[in-house]
């Protein structure tokens, strides 16, 4: 194994001791500052579990009820804390159950280290019991993956895994460890990895590119910023705010960029994308300079690329060179860490305000308010709307909650209407759109940020995809707030069927169980409401509760989420109804 020689390292635990590989795994995690991990035991990972038992005062293992839950919980933990989330599973089915979470973490740039047990190395390739080629399976959805077959490789590979997961554009790493490597002995010494020669984690910002970007921005009459999660990952919230304010640029966000700048900021013009706000989508095709910061021009954001911002000069700030010109051709690319790049940009910008241009956004907002928002959050019809539930949560938490949303209509509503006043408050599955994400992710988020309100917003469909994690909520006593917006439909799919498949509701209607009884079965305080007059009281009670709380809100069955850009349409063809 040549891995060690290619890395730069720094000794953190140099009292060499002779220990088994399994203990080295746990000591390595501790040396990386890990104090919590999520997982599920099984034959091929039992030696490590035995060590976790011995080290339980230093590192807390959370038994989820499914490995997918473990991966999502680790994601939730990572997304709210900015640290590496750790998930652990046995070989074969345990490992494959992690895959959805790993794929989700890969596309949403979430730092994860996943450790899987593997059959003994002499059995590799023999179709042994619970053997699966997890390195092969996970290769396309990991930032890096590696199999360890010798105990002596454990500290070096784990150090490299943590370094790769958290550095540069973060991502998931999988380390598969054979059972004989867990049993074998090694002289343990932990050296933190500080560099890998074949990997430039953070390209240095080129001052000439920044200058070119500043020139274009300074000459713009109608500039517009679209920022993404790169701002949050780069801890560049303050730099972004300074740039926006100095240059007076109306600024929109992608779903994963949400919360980097407070919702109430006067230059925050809302969300772009398929169910984003009217003004920023429409005016993308009128701005003269489009400044993309830490975002990747996902197709949900751009709609039809042939008609996307064709009139605009494009300036793209990103840490990942492979994102430049991948989907949208840029005029100036600034490759590097967002904090660095924006700090360099700031002094080169001319102080400006683009009042008339900003007014165009406000005018379109007024139209959106009249046609959509008013009905969503101040409804006059009888049935409850998802929007008014979010409004009530905003009021009770003063916009300070971390909102963990699942996937579907409720997710779009949550992202559109939640007040995000604190960064890292929108935890959702953006790129993969994984139903079942929210309940376990909320567990991880609440454990990482116990002082924050963590509210999971979930559809009746997605809730049932990982409903078993109520068991984890109960056993771990995680005071997470779970709101199921029950429309008795796979709502988002139903909306598409209504709009594009002549209302043929093929397999989207759901006959649901009694969720409240189920939650109570897990000893979680639970309530169901279906009337407007119950809403305020229920949300108050839920937020005030010291414990976990389950609230089912029966909402209007066939409400739709608007605005909407139909697949393949242009962003300026965004529909309000």
């Amino acid at each position, binding site marked *: 194994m040549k891995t060690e020689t290619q890395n730069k390292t720094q000794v953190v635990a140099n009292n060499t001791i002779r220990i088994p590989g399994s203990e080295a795994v746990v000591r390595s995690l501790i040396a990386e500052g890990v104090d919590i991990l999520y997982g599920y035991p099984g034959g091929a990972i039992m030696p490590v579990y035995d060590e976790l038992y011995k080290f339980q005062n230093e590192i807390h293992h959370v038994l989820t009820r499914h490995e997918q839950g473990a991966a999502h919980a680790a994601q939730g933990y990572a997304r709210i804390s900015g640290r590496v989330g750790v998930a652990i599973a046995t070989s074969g089915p345990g490992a494959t159950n992690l895959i959805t979470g790993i794929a989700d973490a890969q596309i949403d740039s979430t730092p994860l280290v996943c450790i899987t047990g593997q059959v003994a190395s002499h059995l590799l390739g023999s179709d042994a019991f619970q053997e699966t080629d997890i390195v092969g399976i996970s*290769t*396309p959805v990991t930032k*890096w993956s590696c199999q360890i077959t010798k105990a002596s490789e454990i500290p070096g590979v784990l150090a490299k895994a943590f370094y790769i997961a958290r550095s540069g554009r973060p991502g998931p790493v999988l380390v598969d460890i054979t059972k004989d490597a867990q049993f074998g002995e090694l002289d343990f010494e932990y050296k933190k990895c500080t560099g890998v*020669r*074949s*990997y430039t984690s953070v390209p240095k910002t080129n001052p000439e590119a920044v200058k070119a970007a500043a020139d274009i921005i300074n000459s713009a009459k109608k500039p517009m910023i679209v920022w993404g999660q790169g701002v949050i990952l780069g801890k560049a919230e303050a730099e972004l705010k300074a740039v926006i304010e100095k240059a007076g640029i109306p600024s929109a966000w992608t779903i994963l960029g949400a919360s980097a700048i407070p919702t109430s900021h006067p230059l925050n013009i809302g969300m772009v994308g398929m169910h984003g706000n009217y003004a920023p989508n429409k005016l993308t095709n009128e701005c003269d300079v489009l400044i993309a910061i830490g975002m990747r021009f996902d197709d949900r954001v751009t709609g039809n690329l042939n008609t996307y911002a064709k009139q605009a000069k494009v300036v793209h700030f990103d840490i990942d060179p*492979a994102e430049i010109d991948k989907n949208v051709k840029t005029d100036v690319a600034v490759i590097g860490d967002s904090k660095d790049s924006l700090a360099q940009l700031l002094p080169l910008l001319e102080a400006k305000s683009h009042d008339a241009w900003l007014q165009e956004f406000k005018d379109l907002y007024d139209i959106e308010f009249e046609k959509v928002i008013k009905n969503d959050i101040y409804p006059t019809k009888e049935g409850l709307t998802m929007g008014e539930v979010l409004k009530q949560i905003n009021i009770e938490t003063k916009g300070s909650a971390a909102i963990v949303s699942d996937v579907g209509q409720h997710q779009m509503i949550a992202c559109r209407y939640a007040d995000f006043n604190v960064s890292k408050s929108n935890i959702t599955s953006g790129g993969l759109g994984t139903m079942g994400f929210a309940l376990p992710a909320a567990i991880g988020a609440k454990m990482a940020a116990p002082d924050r309100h963590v509210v999971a917003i979930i559809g009746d469909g997605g809730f049932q995809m990982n409903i078993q994690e109520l068991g984890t909520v109960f056993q771990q006593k995680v005071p997470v707030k779970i709101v199921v917006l029950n429309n008795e439909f796979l709502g988002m799919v139903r909306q598409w069927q209504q709009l594009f498949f002549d209302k043929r509701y093929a397999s989207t209607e759901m006959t649901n169980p009694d969720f409240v009884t189920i939650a109570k079965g897990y000893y979680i305080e639970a309530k169901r409401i279906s009337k407007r007059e119950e809403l305020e009281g229920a949300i108050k009670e839920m937020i005030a509760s010291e414990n976990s709380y389950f609230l089912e809100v029966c909402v209007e069955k066939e409400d739709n989420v608007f605005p909407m850009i139909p697949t393949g349409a242009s962003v300026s063809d965004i529909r309000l109804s």
Partner: protein
Amino acid sequence: MNEEIKTFTISIYTENNIGLLNRISAIFQRRHINIESLTTSQSEIDGVNRFVIVVNITETQAKKIVGQFEKQIEVIRAFYHTDEQTIFTESCMFKIKSALLFEEPQIQNIIKESNARIVTVNKEFFVLEKSGRRNEIESLRRDLNVFGIMQFVRAGRIAVTKDEMKVTELLLAFNNQ
């Protein structure tokens, strides 16, 4: 805007670690790009491997795919080059019945003119080896086909570039950091 499809030689300098071929081939597979030829071997630098992969794609695709390779942790650098920018060759082997050497004296002329080399001869068969451009190899194959070829195999393209590839510098920079 239909961009022209050309032959590109993609060179990928990598760490010599297990599992990389999997990552590299997955990148082609995801984009539905067919690999024309693939060679991997040690490079001029100790402990560094080099993949030489030939594909028929557009330049935009080549640029993007090289970006995806460079993103892989264990890839040190990746490059793409057109045929004009490289010096390249392929090699092949033919296995032919020995009797033909005497029954069809013309074969001896073909061998001489094509600059093919006889690797081995025994009672049953002889083996020819030839390196060169694809068209030279194809033409030799056509000529020999008339008489019957027992076995034929062609290896992937190997190529060096006309310009320098700055990989060594990169490695030195890491070591001196």
